[in-house]
């Protein structure tokens, strides 16, 4: 199971390991933003970062059938978004690959951009693994 959680306010929900969950995830973040009056300019970065981590969990940790938990914690200054997956092997999905964004078209490789962009959009990314569970924590200082 993957779980998703969002002033001094918390939102938390579980999502099936499927790309079809993305719509529900974005509805969840939308509700959280509205209920907590979080400035809209932050939503694109939050949605994109959650999607990239969520899809990487599905792709690179397929051994689990558990849902993924997403938790959003909010205070006045920042958001912390945690994605937690259980019954998985250790795999640091935040291990950011090098992407040469200055390479000419013929040298550019398709793929690998997701985590690179998350690293640009979020102010901090943390990974931890314990008892066959991994937890990715994204921190974003809120833009007004």
């Amino acid at each position, binding site marked *: 199971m993957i779980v998703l959680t969002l002033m001094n306010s918390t939102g938390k929900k579980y999502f099936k390991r499927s*790309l079809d969950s993305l719509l529900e995830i*974005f509805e969840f973040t939308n509700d959280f933003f509205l209920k907590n009056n979080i400035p809209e300019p932050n939503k694109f970065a939050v949605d994109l970062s959650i*999607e990239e981590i969520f899809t990487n969990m599905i792709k690179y940790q397929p051994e689990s059938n558990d849902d993924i938990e997403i938790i959003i914690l909010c205070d006045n200054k920042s958001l912390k978004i945690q994605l937690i997956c259980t019954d998985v092997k250790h795999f640091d999905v935040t291990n950011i690959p090098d992407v040469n964004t200055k390479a*000419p*078209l013929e040298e550019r490789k398709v793929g690998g951009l*997701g985590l*690179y962009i998350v690293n*640009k959009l979020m102010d901090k990314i943390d990974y931890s693994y314990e008892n066959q569970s991994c937890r990715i924590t994204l921190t974003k200082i809120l833009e007004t």
Partner: protein
Amino acid sequence: MFDIKIDENKAIKLSGRLDASQVNKANEVFKLISETTIIDFQELEYISSAGMGIFLAVQKRLSESGHSLKLKNLSKHVNDIFHYAGFDRIFEIE
């Protein structure tokens, strides 16, 4: 939701949200592109790396025959992530 349409000038208009779950739908249209084509982002609210990967793959394919995608009307958010990805170096963006 995501939608993709071809207008009377053969420009491709995107709308909604192009996330990973919509990639197959986008590919059904993009795989048919064989010449220089304008992509209008006016109504596209969101794109993730899955969608960006489609653009990169098509641009690489078209470049082999001297053609390209030309991107226009990107929102600020989309423009920012395209810049982070270096897409402003490999696409003509209006």
